[in-house]
C-alpha cells in the first residue's frame, strides 16, 4: 500500500470518523435509556432509578463531550480533506448537514446544560423534558447525517449539470433507497451498544462488589434491551443486505468474497480473499447459502466482483469487517438471552451471584463499538472507489496537500485519539469503582459492604 496524499487523506478521514462515531453511538442510545430511568423515577419515586440516572448521566456527559469535540473536527474535515466533494455535491450535502446543525446540535448542546446541572434549578417535569429533548436531538442528528451518508451510497432525486449535483426532489434525496434501512440499523446498533455498555459496567461493579440496587436495575434494563434488540438487529441487517444487493452489488460481492457471478452461490464462512489472484484461498463454503441469504431463493443469482472491473472496493477489509460485525451480533444475541434468562428469574432486591455471566458481560462492555466500527467499514470501504456511488470517485475530490503535512497531522490526530480513548476508559473505570450510592437504600442487615457517601 503506497502512502500517496490520496491514501493519507482517506486514512486521516477514517481515523477521525472512526474515533468520532464511538461516542454518538453511545450517546444516542444512552440518552433514551436515561430518559427511561427518569420516567421510572418520576412514576415510582423509587430512589434507585434516581441514582441510576445520576451515575449514568456522568458517563453520558463525558461521552457527549468527546462526541462534540470530535464532531467539530468532522465538520472541518469535509472541507480540509475533500473540498471537491462540497464543490460538486454541496447543493445536496450542504443543506442536509445544515439541518443537522440547526435541528439537532443546538438542541442537544443547550438542554444538556439543564440535564447535567439544572436539577436544583428547574422542576422535575422540566428536567425530564430536557432529557427528552436531548434524546430527540441526538436522534435528529442521526437522521440527517445518515440521510446524507445513505444518499452517497444510493443517490436519488438529483440531476448533474457540468459535473455539479443539483436537487430535483428533496423528498427523494432525504428518503433515498437505503436510508430507512441504514437509519434503523444504526439506531438499533446504538441502543445495543449502550445496552452492553450499561450491562458491562454494572457487571464489573458486581464483580468488584461495589454494586447496589440501582446497579441491578440497570443490568436488567440492559439485558431486556439486548434480548429484544439483538434479534431485531439481525432482521434489519438482513433487509439492509437485500437493499445493498439491489443498489450496490459490488459491495455485497466483496462482503461475501464472491468473484464469479453464479446461481446458487455458496456462502463463504471463512477464507482469505486475494485480489491479485481473484480468488478466496482456503475458503470454507456452505453450498447455496449465499444465494438463500441474499436473494431468499436457493438458486438466486449473485453477481461476482469480476463484473465490476475497475470499480470494485478493496475486498479483504470488507470481507473481514463483515464477519467481525456478524460474529459480534450473534454473540450479543446469545449473551443477551443468557443474561435475561438468568437475571429475570431472581428476585429484584438481591445481588446477582453468577460470576460467569458477570465476567462475560464485563468482557462485552465495548463489544458494540467493535461491531459498529466493523459495520461502518463494510459500508464505507465497500462503497469505494466512489464517494457518491457510481457517480463521483473519491480520488476526484481529494484536497491537494503535501504528503508530509497529511502524515504529520494524521500522526497528531492518532496520538491524541489514543490518549483520549485511554483516558475515557480510565475515567469510566474510576467512576465505576466507587461504591454504589444506592446501597444506602438497602436495609442494614442486607449490607455486604459499607455505603460510601463520596461514591455514586
Amino acid at each position, binding site marked *: 500500500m503506497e502512502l500517496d496524499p490520496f491514501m493519507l487523506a482517506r486514512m486521516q478521514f477514517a481515523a477521525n470518523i472512526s474515533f468520532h462515531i464511538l461516542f454518538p453511538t453511545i450517546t444516542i442510545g444512552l440518552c433514551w435509556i436515561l430518559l427511561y430511568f427518569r420516567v421510572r423515577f418520576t412514576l415510582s419515586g423509587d430512589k434507585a432509578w434516581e441514582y441510576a440516572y445520576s451515575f449514568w*448521566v456522568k458517563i453520558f456527559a463525558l461521552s457527549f463531550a468527546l462526541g462534540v469535540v470530535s464532531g467539530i473536527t468532522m*465538520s472541518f474535515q469535509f*472541507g480540509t480533506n475533500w473540498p471537491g466533494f462540497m464543490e460538486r455535491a454541496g447543493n445536496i450535502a450542504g443543506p442536509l448537514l445544515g439541518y443537522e*446543525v440547526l435541528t439537532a*446540535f*443546538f438542541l442537544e448542546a443547550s438542554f*444538556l446544560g439543564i440535564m447535567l446541572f439544572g436539577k436544583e434549578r428547574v422542576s422535575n417535569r422540566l428536567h425530564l423534558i430536557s432529557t427528552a429533548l436531548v434524546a430527540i436531538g441526538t436522534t435528529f442528528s442521526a437522521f440527517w447525517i445518515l440521510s446524507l451518508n445513505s444518499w452517497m451510497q444510493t443517490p436519488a432525486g438529483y440531476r448533474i449539470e457540468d459535473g455539479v449535483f443539483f*436537487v430535483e426532489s428533496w423528498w427523494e434525496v432525504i428518503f433515498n433507497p437505503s436510508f430507512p434501512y441504514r437509519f434503523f440499523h444504526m439506531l438499533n446498533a446504538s441502543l445495543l451498544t449502550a445496552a452492553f455498555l450499561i450491562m458491562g459496567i454494572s457487571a464489573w461493579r458486581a464483580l468488584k462488589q461495589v454494586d447496589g440496587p440501582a446497579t441491578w436495575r440497570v443490568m436488567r434494563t440492559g439485558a431486556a434491551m439486548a434480548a429484544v434488540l439483538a434479534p431485531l438487529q439481525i432482521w434489519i441487517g438482513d433487509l439492509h443486505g437485500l437493499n445493498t444487493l439491489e443498489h450496490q452489488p459490488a459491495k455485497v460481492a466483496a462482503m461475501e468474497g464472491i468473484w464469479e457471478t453464479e446461481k446458487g452461490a455458496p456462502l463463504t464462512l471463512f477464507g482469505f480473499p486475494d485480489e491479485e489472484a481473484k480468488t478466496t484461498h482456503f475458503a470454507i463454503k456452505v453450498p447455496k447459502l449465499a444465494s438463500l441469504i441474499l436473494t431468499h431463493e436457493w438458486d438466486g443469482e449473485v453477481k461476482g466482483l469480476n463484473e465490476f472491473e475497475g470499480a470494485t472496493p478493496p475486498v479483504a477489509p470488507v470481507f473481514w469487517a463483515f464477519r467481525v460485525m456478524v460474529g459480534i451480533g450473534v454473540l450479543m444475541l446469545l449473551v443477551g438471552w443468557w443474561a435475561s434468562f438468568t437475571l429475570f428469574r431472581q428476585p429484584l432486591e438481591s445481588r446477582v451471584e453468577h460470576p460467569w455471566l458477570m465476567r462475560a458481560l464485563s468482557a462485552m462492555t465495548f463489544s458494540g463499538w467493535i461491531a459498529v466500527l466493523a459495520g461502518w467499514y463494510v459500508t464505507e470501504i465497500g462503497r469505494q472507489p466512489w464517494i457518491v456511488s457510481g457517480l463521483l470517485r473519491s480520488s476526484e475530490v481529494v484536497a491537494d496537500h503535501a504528503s508530509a503535512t497529511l502524515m504529520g497531522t494524521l500522526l497528531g490526530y492518532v496520538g*491524541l485519539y489514543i490518549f483520549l480513548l485511554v483516558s475515557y476508559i480510565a475515567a469510566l473505570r474510576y467512576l465505576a469503582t466507587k461504591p454504589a450510592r444506592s446501597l444506602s437504600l438497602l436495609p442494614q442487615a442486607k449490607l455486604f459492604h459499607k455505603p460510601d457517601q463520596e461514591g455514586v
Partner: protein
Amino acid sequence: MDLSFWLPLFFAGAMGLALLIYVLLDGYDLGIGMLLPFASEEEKDLMIGSIGPFWDANETWIVLGVGILLIAFPQAHGIVLTALYLPVTIMLMGLILRGVAFDFRVKAGDARKGMWNALFAVGSLIASAAQGWMLGAYITGLSDDTTGLLFSALIAVTLPALYVLLGSAWLLIKTDGALFEKAIRWGRNALLPMGLCLLLVSVATPLVSSVIADKWFTLPNAIGLLPIPLITATAYAGLVWLFNSSVILRSGYGWLIFAALTVICVMASIGLGYSLFPEIIIGRLDLWEAAAATESLLFIFWGTVITLPAILGYTFFIYRVFRGKATALSYD
C-alpha cells in the same frame, strides 16, 4: 424578487451573525480557560462552574458558522479550508483538548485533576491563537507572503487578549469576592493587547486592498462610516475608564464590561463586513460566485428562518435558568 441575489446575501448575514455570537460566547469560555492557571484551586472550580452549563452550546456556533460557509458558499469553503489547513487542524486539537479536559478534570480522579486543568488552559490558548491566525490570514486574502504571515502571527498573539477580556467580563457577572477582584486585574492587563489587535485589524484591511481603502476613505462614504470607529473608540475608552473606577464594577455594574465588549465586537463585525462586501474571499471570489444553487439555498432558508429564532429563544432560556452568581458544579 430575485432569490439568486437575495439568498446569498441572507446567508452571508447569517454566517456573520453566527461567527459574531461564537466570538462573544465561546470567547468568554476560552478566555476563562486561559485564565485558569492564575487562579487558586477553589477558584478554578468556580470558574469552570460559571461556564459549565453553556460551553457545549457556545461551541456549536462555530459549527453553524462553518456550516453556513459550507452550505451556502461551497466554493469558498473549499478554498478557505484548504488554505487554512494547518491552523484549522491546530485549532481543532486545541478545542478537542479543552472540551474533554472540562469533563475529565472532575471525573478522572483527583490524582489527574492537575493535568486536565493544565490541558484545559493549553487547549484554550492553542484554539484562541489558531483562530487569531485564521482571522489574520483571512483578512490578508489568504496570502502566504512574509507580510501576510507576520500579520497573521500578530493577530494570533493579540486575539487571545480579546477572549481573556471576555472571560474576565464573564467572571465579573458570575462571581464575587476575591475572584471578582482578580478578574478586574486580569481584564486590565488584557486591555492593551486587545486594543492593539483591534487597531491592527482595522488598519490592515484597507492596506491589503485598494478597493477596501477606497470604500472607507472617499467622500461621502467616509462621513457615513464615521460612527463605526467613533462608537468603537468610545466603547474602548469606556472600558479603560470602567477598569480604573472599579467601585462602579463592584456596585453591581460588572456586566457593563461585557456590554462594552459586545459593542466593540459588533462594530468590528460591521466594519469587516463592509470592507469585504461583496467579496467572500478578498480579491478572488464574490458572494454570488461562491454561492450554492438557489433551490438548495431556498430549502435551507426555510429551515433557518424557523429554527434560528427557536435556537436564540432557548439559548436565552438556558441563560435565564442559570442566571446569578456561579457555584462550583456538582453532577449529583
